[in-house]
């Protein structure tokens, strides 16, 4: 039997059992609009790629990581010093987590500024917002796992903020900590959230998000007339470009991991005083700094509660963008949304920088 015959027979055997021809048909017809904003499409792909990196490196870390107060720090040190390429896996996992959140924010704002949230893509936007929230939860839960001094006290601050939530705050903080304070139960819970609960929800949401993107196709910004837009074949033309971008992201990750390996710090000591200048991860800095600036009392209300309520209203308002960001006729309110988007980006950048340096 010749090689061609083997190939043909294998293909027809698989065709009989799998919807390969449907997939081939789909790929043959899937196109990507080519215009001045096409480059922003890649950020969704990079986010997906980094999510994949997180799954692979996370699985590798799980081979050695031990989620107990007594062993977690030493197990991470063991990974970094004794396991072959353990340092690389852990550093890539940490750097990729941060890049993932950064790229997810860029992706979200690019969708907002190109008004890709319009009908019929409301659910795509909502699932994306939910995914961003999940990525932040991944970051918060994963930060504690090495059980070092900074992560321990940052989690204390983080769960204290959660405790300030009106009505449910105390219960929420107790649920997160598994007790009155950050300790052994918190580590076990955060590990369970990080490797089981959140990945399960995120996996489902990623699948839904991708399905919605495929169903609705790629959006073209409202200021570019459809009549002028060329279409590029998704496979292989766009796909190969996507692969190039992924390779670029991989190179950046490798360089960051090799030149700036993610540090381990000192083992958490609950009886020690909090390290000087304790602050959360950069993606929570804007919120953290804003809460610091709010006075302890605003009129008759507690300042922190007012701040948290403000953030909740802002987050819900932003999540509902597809519903207030369009006119009754379904046209994007470009000026309003762009103005609010620019204000939001400026606020996040300014307060993150201030939170870092002050």
């Amino acid at each position, binding site marked *: 039997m010749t090689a061609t015959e083997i190939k043909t027979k294998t293909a027809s055997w698989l065709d009989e059992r799998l919807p390969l021809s449907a997939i081939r048909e789909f790929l043959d017809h899937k196109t990507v609009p080519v215009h001045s904003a096409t480059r922003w499409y890649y950020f969704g792909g990079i986010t997906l790629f980094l999510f994949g990196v997180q799954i692979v490196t996370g699985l590798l870390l799980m081979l050695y990581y031990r989620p107990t107060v007594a062993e977690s720090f030493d197990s991470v040190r063991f990974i970094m010093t004794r396991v072959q390429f353990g340092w690389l896996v852990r550093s890539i996992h940490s750097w990729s987590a941060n890049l993932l959140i950064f790229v997810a924010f860029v992706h979200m704002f690019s969708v907002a500024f190109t008004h890709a949230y319009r009908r019929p893509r409301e659910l795509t936007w909502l699932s994306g917002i939910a995914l961003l929230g999940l990525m932040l939860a991944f970051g918060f839960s994963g930060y504690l796992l090495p059980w070092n001094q900074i992560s321990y006290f940052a989690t204390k601050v983080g769960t204290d903020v959660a405790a300030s939530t009106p009505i449910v705050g105390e219960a929420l903080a107790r649920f997160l900590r598994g007790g009155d304070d950050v300790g052994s139960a918190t580590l076990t819970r955060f590990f369970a959230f990080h490797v089981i609960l959140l990945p399960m929800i995120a996996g489902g949401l990623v699948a839904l998000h991708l399905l919605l993107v495929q169903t609705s196709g790629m959006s073209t910004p409202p200021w570019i007339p459809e009549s002028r837009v060329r279409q590029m074949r998704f496979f*292989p033309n766009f796909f190969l470009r996507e692969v190039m971008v992924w390779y670029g992201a991989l*190179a950046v990750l490798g360089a960051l991991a090799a030149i700036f390996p993610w540090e381990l710090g000192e083992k958490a000591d609950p009886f020690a005083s909090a390290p000087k200048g304790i602050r959360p991860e950069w993606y929570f800095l804007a919120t953290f700094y804003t809460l610091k600036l709010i006075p302890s009392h605003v009129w008759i209300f507690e300042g922190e509660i007012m701040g948290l309520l403000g953030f909740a209203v802002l987050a819900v308002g932003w999540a509902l963008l597809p519903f207030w960001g369009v006119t009754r006729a379904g046209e994007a309110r470009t000026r309003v949304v762009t103005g609010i988007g620019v204000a939001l980006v400026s606020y996040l950048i300014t307060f993150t920088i201030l939170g870092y340096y002050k």
Partner: protein
Amino acid sequence: MKPFRVVLTFAAALFLAPVLLPGQQPVTDTCVACHSALVDDLQKPATLFKDDIHSSKGLSCADCHGGDRTKDDMSVAMDPAKGFLGKPKRTAIPQLCSRCHSDAKFMGKFRPQPRVDQFTLYKTSIHGKRLATGDENVATCIDCHSVHDIRAVKDPRATVYPLNVPHTCGQCHADSKHMAKYGIPTDQLDKYHTSVHWNALTKGNDLSAPTCASCHGNHGAKPPEVASVSAVCGTCHVSFAQNYDKSIHQPLFSEAPGGGGCVVCHTNHGIQMPSTAMLSGPKAVCTQCHDAASDGGKAAAEMAGWVDGLDAALKRSEGVLMSADKSGMEVSEAQLRLSDGRENLVKAKLAMHTFNPDEMHKPILAGMAIADETLKVGQAALREKNYRRWGLAVSSLLIAITLAAIWFLLRRMEAGGAGYRPASTHAPYR
């Protein structure tokens, strides 16, 4: 009753109350009142006393000087019949202070566990003994604690606050005229200012660092006796004193002139930071007794070499580990291990006070092993760092080649616009 009458009656009652109610008027301290109105030395006690600890505890001039502070008439207020003492004689001062300070019941009102042994100790001191012979030149309570503006020991303004003690003692002991008739040196304060103890006290902000009183005692002040010098130093330097007591030098140094014990090598008031230069070289103290070519001199040089060698080895390891740490390598375990090496260096310096090279060699060997072990870890981390950089370069090159290959592939594929569909058409792909 009309409201106006109510107000008037209330005001009159308030105005007349101090006159009509016996014993309710405030007591005036006539000592302070009169002396405040005087000038110079007669005014000074009244001015100073406002900040005196005794004043804050409710005591008055009359509690020490006697008399009746409630009487305006000077002849009555300062009537010897009312116990007025005037300015107490210097020889009477310790006893005067002890009327309260040796009374446990009275002092118990101010402190749950009062100290009442000061006068007893003072009587055993050189100061107390000489005062008893009528020498008014020696220190009494007021010379150290001041008078009329006495403050608690913990008050930084107090003359007996640790930082101020050397100056307080130095007021007399650094005064060559004052000390002339006793024939004792007056360079102690100057020497102390150059010492490691003064540095610890002032630059290291360590208020527990020794001052004059730590070695000589305060109320029972006297020079440490020859046999007790190592015991005095051993109050803080416990392990050193224990090793020294076991050494061959202990019985020999006990008879040495100038204090003996630790003082033979370290001196007393001007103690410097010990180093191996004390063991060998031109400034070695060992050569005061041992010729450099003798067995003792050779042993001292050997011990100095061991300490310097271990110190250099640990510093080298520390430098390599720090360099690895700065470049992001995880070497915290080795850095922690290095502190065991430092501990062995301290143990070696400690063991040196037995003056037995065999005792000293054990921690030196242990420390050298740790220095070697941590150096290897640091060097391996630096090699690993270079290996990672090379790995990064190779992988970046491979990624660059792959990217270039894909780019050429795309260019070839898309030659002539293949893979694109023109705008507004449903024409098939080219």
